[in-house]
């Protein structure tokens, strides 16, 4: 029952009591004041902060406040952009995918969070089918994203004339790679001069090349 030398723990393994440690991530405190592991992993005791946490063997990815996400616009209302979130990403120093969500999560970008500028028409910022990066600002109901800031915005778009792939050409517009049609968008700074490649298990099934 007690934790062994290699600190390997499973849900329920006793890690200490409330009086000696602060219960950190991957742990919980039971009714009797005992701190126990809640996931499979390795226990980590931090003597300087008197904390104990468990580093999980399998990291469960779930939307959390402040994380940057990759999503696809599924609907645009007059005052709201609806987004399906696919993955958690890192934007700096380089774009990289931290992990793919096991299932997509639906989130909204309210008009006020679309841009730091005055937004006259939301369609000049996002349209259906856009692959975007955004930041989670609230995990309450509904899940809320923000694209305020130069880093956030469109990576890829779909041409409203011919349906082909559109690539960003400047911070406010995208251009069709096939017919040359230009549309207004809020483009992410990381998409210029060239958007990063986005290879996701779940996105491969979709139309984007």
């Amino acid at each position, binding site marked *: 029952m007690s934790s062994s030398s*290699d600190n390997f723990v499973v849900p*329920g393994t006793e890690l200490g009591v409330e009086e000696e440690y602060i219960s950190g991530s991957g742990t919980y405190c039971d009714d009797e004041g005992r701190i126990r592991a809640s996931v499979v992993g390795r226990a980590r005791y931090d003597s300087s902060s008197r904390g104990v946490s468990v*580093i999980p063997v399998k990291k469960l990815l779930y939307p959390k406040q402040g994380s940057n996400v990759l999503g696809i616009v599924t609907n645009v209302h007059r005052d709201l952009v609806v987004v399906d979130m696919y993955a958690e990403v890192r934007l700096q120093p380089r774009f990289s995918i931290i992990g793919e969500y096991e299932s997509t999560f639906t989130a909204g970008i309210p008009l006020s969070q679309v841009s730091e500028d005055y937004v006259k028409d939301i369609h000049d910022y996002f349209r259906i089918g856009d692959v975007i990066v955004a930041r989670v600002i609230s995990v309450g109901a509904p899940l809320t994203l923000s694209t305020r800031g130069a880093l956030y915005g469109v990576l890829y778009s779909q041409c409203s004339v011919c349906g082909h792939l559109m690539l960003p050409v400047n911070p406010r517009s995208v251009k069709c790679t096939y017919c040359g049609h230009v549309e207004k968008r809020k483009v992410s700074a990381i998409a210029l001069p060239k958007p990063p490649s986005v290879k996701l298990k779940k996105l491969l099934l979709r139309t984007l090349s």
Partner: protein
Amino acid sequence: MGGSNKSEVKLIDESGKRHDGRSPEDLRPIRMEVGVLNNANGSALVEFGRTRVIAAVYGPKEPPQKYVALPDRAILRVRYHMAPFSTEDRKSPAPSRREIELSKVIREALEPVVISELYPRAAIDVFVEVLQADGGTRTTGVTAASLALADAGIPMRALVGGVAVGKVEGVLVLDIDEVEDNLGEADMPVAAAPDINKVTLLQLNGVLTQEEFERGLEMALNAIKKIVEMEKETLRNKYSKVSLEEV
């Protein structure tokens, strides 16, 4: 059904051994494996003798029907299902009354240990598929589901395990199989989380005296301790060598 039908099968012989050679307090040989399915977030296969159950876990995720979500925690959705080939006569794959009830019973056996408050408005799906049935499928199912949840990385207060105690020819026996269940006088499935001292499932079909009940529950809880230790060993064998990336 019911009554000790001694003329057909002898459930307890002169030396006190059961029809399969076990003594009353013996478990069947148990085998556990985690991470058996590639496409599920977590999975486990558990065998109690000839009973074989596979469990798969998905989530936490956005529930397909938003109205079923709860504002303060995740919902657990459990499907207990017996494969058509799991029984002697083909079982219709459509969910039966019994399967719907067992789904609920298994869900309620898991709900006290899953820390669902961490994922409000989410859904956690647990699929319990009986591949081969030889008695004790619900308790084997709870055991498999517990392992699969741990394998999926879903926060839990403790691991749960389950086992059934029965009475055959007046003797309390542990981990009854199909024959003992059909011909015996009582069947009492129990699931518990020994680490936190909680019984999460307790049913009784048949009649036990108070003394028999108390003795039976003690037998079951002792066996569950062993079963949960095996679950821990299984997880350790699978994951103790995994190198961890720092967060």
